[in-house]
């Protein structure tokens, strides 16, 4: 078992950036330790030969022995949606119609 951690700290930073999470230095080290341990454990999946195995993202394909046709979509007709007023009540900041956020573009 190698003493080197499986995941480097700057990889933790890169992933945190992708996930829009801001970790402090302590959290970075803890996450490095935890992710390394978990990924070390996950590596055992390589013991299985999966060369000829199709990935399965949804169980739907086996739910009826594979005979089900494509999952039916509903008809394309306009139905009532959520009431806007009720939805906007939850907004941290809004003008009633739009969600307001800090500026996006630096001038």
């Amino acid at each position: 078992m190698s003493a080197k951690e499986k995941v480097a700290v700057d990889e933790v930073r890169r992933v945190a950036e992708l996930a829009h999470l801001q970790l402090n230095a302590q959290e970075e080290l803890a996450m490095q330790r935890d992710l390394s341990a978990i990924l070390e454990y996950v590596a055992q999946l390589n013991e299985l030969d999966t060369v000829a195995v199709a990935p399965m993202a949804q169980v739907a394909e086996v739910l009826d022995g594979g005979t089900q046709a494509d999952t039916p979509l509903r008809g394309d007709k306009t139905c009532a949606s959520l009431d806007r007023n009720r939805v906007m009540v939850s907004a941290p900041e809004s003008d009633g119609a739009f969600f307001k956020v800090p500026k996006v573009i630096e001038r």
Partner: protein
Amino acid sequence: MMKKTLDVELPRVKDALTAIAAGATTAVALTQDCLSAIEQQNPVINAFLSVDKDGALAGAERIDECVSAGSSVGPLAGIPFGIKDVLTVEGLPATAGSKILEGYRPPYTATAVRRLMDAGAVILGKLNCDEFAMGSSNENSAYGPVRNPHDIDRVPGGSSGGSAAAVAAGMALATLGTDTGGSIRQPASFCGVVGVLPTYGRVSRYGLIAFASSLDRIGPFAASVRDAALVLGVIAGHDLLDATSALEAVPDYTDGIDKGVAGMRLGVPQEYFAEGLDAEVRSAIEATIEKLRAAGAQIVPISLPRTRYAVPTYYVIATAEASSNLARFDGVRYGYRAPEAKTLAEMYRLSREGGFGAEVKRRILLGTYVLSAGYYDAYYKKAQQVRRLLTDDFLAAFKSVDAILTPTAPTPAFRIGEKTDDPMAMYLADIYTVTASLAGICGISVPCGRSREGLPIGLQILGKHFDETTVFRVAQTVESLQG
């Protein structure tokens, strides 16, 4: 160990329905009994995060008016329920056990809850859970842990700890929980109640705050198998609002539930009885299997050879899907927004950092990592391939047996704080439940004994896709054979 100090023992759902219809009790009386139990016990147990006393009593009154007037009422009329806080109920809080949704009130009601309400059920309030359903002990809630009513120094299990504890403590006649990797079955086992894992797609996920969309399922907790079967029959069925909900017809799950197990072939997989299984759990499970044999079932040793790969597979797939699902919590439309943020990017980062707990962050990071460029094939795609192999193991086993019997959890309820320092130790406790989660099959945990310290032990019964009927039949037999 805490003994229940209830003045009133709650009836079974089935008996309560009869009593209300016959005028022997009222929906309001039943609701008041639950509200008293909540008032008495919730300060310690912490199962409920919010209680809607006025709404519940108003709903109960409406049912009582209909019963007095002789008009027809639904199949769950007057039955008080608790709802896990990852399910939306319009106007009631929904926190998902997280600070990021503190104060949030959803503008719509989950289909499963809508169906309960249309059937006449009374909604008491929202139940505590691990944050975003991520956990196996209910210690990851931002609102404090739930305590096991059988021993308040121990966990109730998770993530649906509140849902299981509420039934065990007599605070509700039944509850709804969710199960992604075992989050109904394991707390049911730890709390000595019945918990059902319906087949994936059996119950609509509309209104469920998503954790892992290919794994999440909604299911009932109850004090008896028959009660659980009744509730599943009400919430199950196709829903246009959930594109993954199944068209499969919903049978009457109580029909033939008493038929017994004579002539049934029940598989016992050797991989679930290896090292790591607590000796008292093993003997309770083995004793129950012997009772089923004596009741006429044929017990068949089987193998599910790739079982040991289930936990790593699960933690790659579930975290990957979670990282995607939890991207919506960004401070824009609802939930916590960090007030000090100056730019949009800062707002995303600080809101998520401030609102999410450590376990949620850990899983988002792991999920993001396994999906990221350079790692996708090695981890996520690999896990999806192993998922197919694990499912194949079950499909092969079900060619020769009608149902599969296993322990639900390797141990009885552990102590609060015992596993919180080591995430891996917590993940490994899911070993018996994640397999069924990945394969989409159905299952149940039914109480089958106690440890010497009086802690509940659960038997897990797994069935083929959409064969909940067989699972209920076996579970009902187990329940009837309990001394």
